[in-house]
């Protein structure tokens, strides 16, 4: 993939002198490099090129953790790209405060973003001091439990309908030589799995009390103690996973080596790629089958402040293209995510995607931790939970104490 994007970049530089006369080149950086993701980006590029400008692809391989430092240092170092992907929320907050990013309020007002973008919290995350700084492109939700029907059949138990049934089925799975819950070794997986458990088992109010209000008392309270007990169960069930990347863990579910995985809706792309069918070969439980609430994290494009007037104009064109209804459908179907506007037709969506759309339509949404906490607090949480999941001698009580400290110090 890296190779292909390198070729694309190369081709773009060759084409540059020819294209420069009538179109404006805009370099767009992002970290979408897996098969499905690249196909989705191609849709954006096609739509942008149709506006008479030229999309110069600046893909950075190796997930957000690798790509974001590169993007940030390019912007702070005085070599900004035309536009860049971030997870909307607080990742670009300081860049905006430093005046390095461009104010999109005009474009947003012209396109009536306030009315069409749903849920409203998505645009709130783009808003700092009343001005809009990013164009959301999709909604990714984390709150999914993916289950392998074949694994449960082999173990001789029914496919669970919620988290408690899943925990109850774990011994049978283990006896059949199946790892009940696949949790990859990357720190963000453990941390986010905990957040998902928390939202599902403790409910929306507790979730917001802890992460939005940073109420240390609630974080230390009995509701949370229950969540930590569930995390303890999850830790026991994840023993023997022995893989690092999330898609390797998903692959364990696909091949029936693991019973299930807590992972965002991007995992669905892997199931589709393997030719499995939702409902028949695999099941999905939004909100772990307990609390049907999904979070509205996702991706957005930010536009660095540029001096070149031509390019600034091209930035506006790109921002408009990104929220265009047709582009939204084409992009999100390939990406496996949900469009940011409610007025588009998604007949091609599969069962699991439809469940997600339903919940979204009912308005059962919360902002995700990327939007609520700073990258610093998120990293501390990752350290805590990756240690917890890897170290069976760490008690749930001690972990909760350390969790309370992080929440109390969060900014």
């Amino acid at each position, binding site marked *: 993939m890296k190779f292909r994007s390198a070729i694309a970049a190369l081709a773009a530089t060759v084409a540059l002198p020819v294209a420069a006369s009538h179109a404006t080149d805009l370099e767009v950086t992002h970290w979408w490099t897996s098969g499905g993701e690249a196909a989705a980006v191609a849709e954006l590029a096609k739509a942008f090129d149709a506006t008479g400008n030229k999309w110069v692809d600046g893909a950075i391989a190796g997930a957000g953790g690798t790509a974001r430092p590169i993007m940030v240092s390019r912007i702070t170092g005085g070599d900004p790209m035309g536009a860049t992907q971030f997870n909307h929320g607080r990742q670009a907050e300081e860049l905006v405060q430093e005046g390095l990013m461009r104010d999109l309020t005009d474009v947003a007002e012209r396109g009536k973003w306030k009315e069409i973008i749903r849920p409203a919290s998505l645009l709130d995350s783009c808003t700092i001091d009343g001005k809009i700084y990013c164009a959301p492109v999709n909604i990714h939700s984390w709150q999914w439990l993916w289950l392998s029907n074949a694994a449960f059949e082999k173990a001789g138990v029914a496919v669970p309908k919620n988290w408690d049934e899943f925990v109850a089925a774990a011994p049978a799975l283990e006896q059949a030589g199946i790892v009940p819950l696949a949790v990859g070794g*990357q720190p963000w997986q453990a941390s986010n799995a905990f957040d998902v458990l928390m939202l599902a088992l403790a409910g929306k109010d507790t979730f917001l009390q802890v992460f939005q209000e940073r109420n240390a008392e609630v974080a230390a309270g009995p509701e949370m103690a229950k969540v930590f007990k569930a995390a303890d169960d999850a830790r026991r069930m994840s023993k023997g996973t*022995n893989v690092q990347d999330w898609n390797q863990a998903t692959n364990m579910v696909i091949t029936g080596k693991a019973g299930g995985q807590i992972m965002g809706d991007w995992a669905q792309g892997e199931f589709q790629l393997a030719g499995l069918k939702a409902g028949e070969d695999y099941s999905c439980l939004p909100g772990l089958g307990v609390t049907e609430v999904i979070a509205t994290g996702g991706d957005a494009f930010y536009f660095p402040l540029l001096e070149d007037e031509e390019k600034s104009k091209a930035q506006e064109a790109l921002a408009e293209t990104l929220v265009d209804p047709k582009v939204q459908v084409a992009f999100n179907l390939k990406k496996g995510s949900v469009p940011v506007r409610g007025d588009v037709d998604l007949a091609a969506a599969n069962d699991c995607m439809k469940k997600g759309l339903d919940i979204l339509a009912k308005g059962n949404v919360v902002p995700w931790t990327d939007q609520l906490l700073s*990258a610093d607090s998120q990293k501390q949480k990752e350290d805590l939970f990756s240690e917890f999941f*890897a170290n069976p001698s760490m008690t749930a009580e001690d972990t909760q104490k350390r969790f309370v400290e992080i929440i109390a110090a969060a900014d």
Partner: protein
Amino acid sequence: MTGQATDRTTVPRRSGRPNRLTRNLSAKIASIPMMLTAVVIFLGGTLWTVLYSFTSSKLLPRLRFVGLDQYERLWAAPRWLVSIENLAIYGIFSLIFSMVIGFVLAALMDQKIRFENTFRTVFLYPFALSFIVTGLVWQWLLNPEHGIQSVVRAMGWAGFSFDPLYDSGIVIYGILIAALWQGTGLVMCLMLAGLRGIDEDIWKAARVDGIPMWKTYLFVVIPMMRPVFVTTLVIIASGIVRVYDLVVAQTSGGPGIASEVPAKYVYDYMFQAQNLGQGFAASTMMLITVAIIIVPWAYLEFGGGRKRV
């Protein structure tokens, strides 16, 4: 040079000593860029980092002083403490083992064996690989499902268990194995060069006196190789403090935080957590650790140097 030499002998000293500034002028001019780099980049950068480690800088450096807050947080962070402990274990063992194994290999190679060139290449070859490649190779070798464990089990020892990378208690030793595999070849070459530098007459004299070979190595040859040992020590030690890529490739700090190292803490907090202050505080602590080791040693090595020469 001859002109200078006659100058000094024939012309009586005019002003105390010859003008030091103009001696070897062209060499001094040539080294100005490097001196500037050293002062501005190394020293200036270091001072800047230390200064900003007392601020609450997040994504961007800002001069908002918070005193020792960053350091307090650093030393309260379990991950940092694990990192320090790992560095100590890794450092001590890698120092001892690479020196001992390197020297023993070199001594064996020095026995006028056949195919010495081949052996030397074989032992040195891993050093040509980057830490990333080394880390990946050993990640596979130590993986219980594909690596050594499965091979031994397939040969019949079904109960054999060897999976250091998935055991929090011993994961750092798994990394140590890879580091030794990669690094001892270089140590061996340095040692071999040192051994070849020992005068053949010393060996002859020792043989005449009837001293056993191991005693000659231990009490005569090794003390004579002191400069080689010092060079090797500096090379290994600097490699230990900055160990980062090997860990990233092999375990990315896992399982959990069991194989974290200080350099990785610095990177993760500076760039992933967008907390420059915390990263600077951690890197300042690394600098202090190095200084505590280097300064007394440098004082002993170079401070009394004039007497010896």
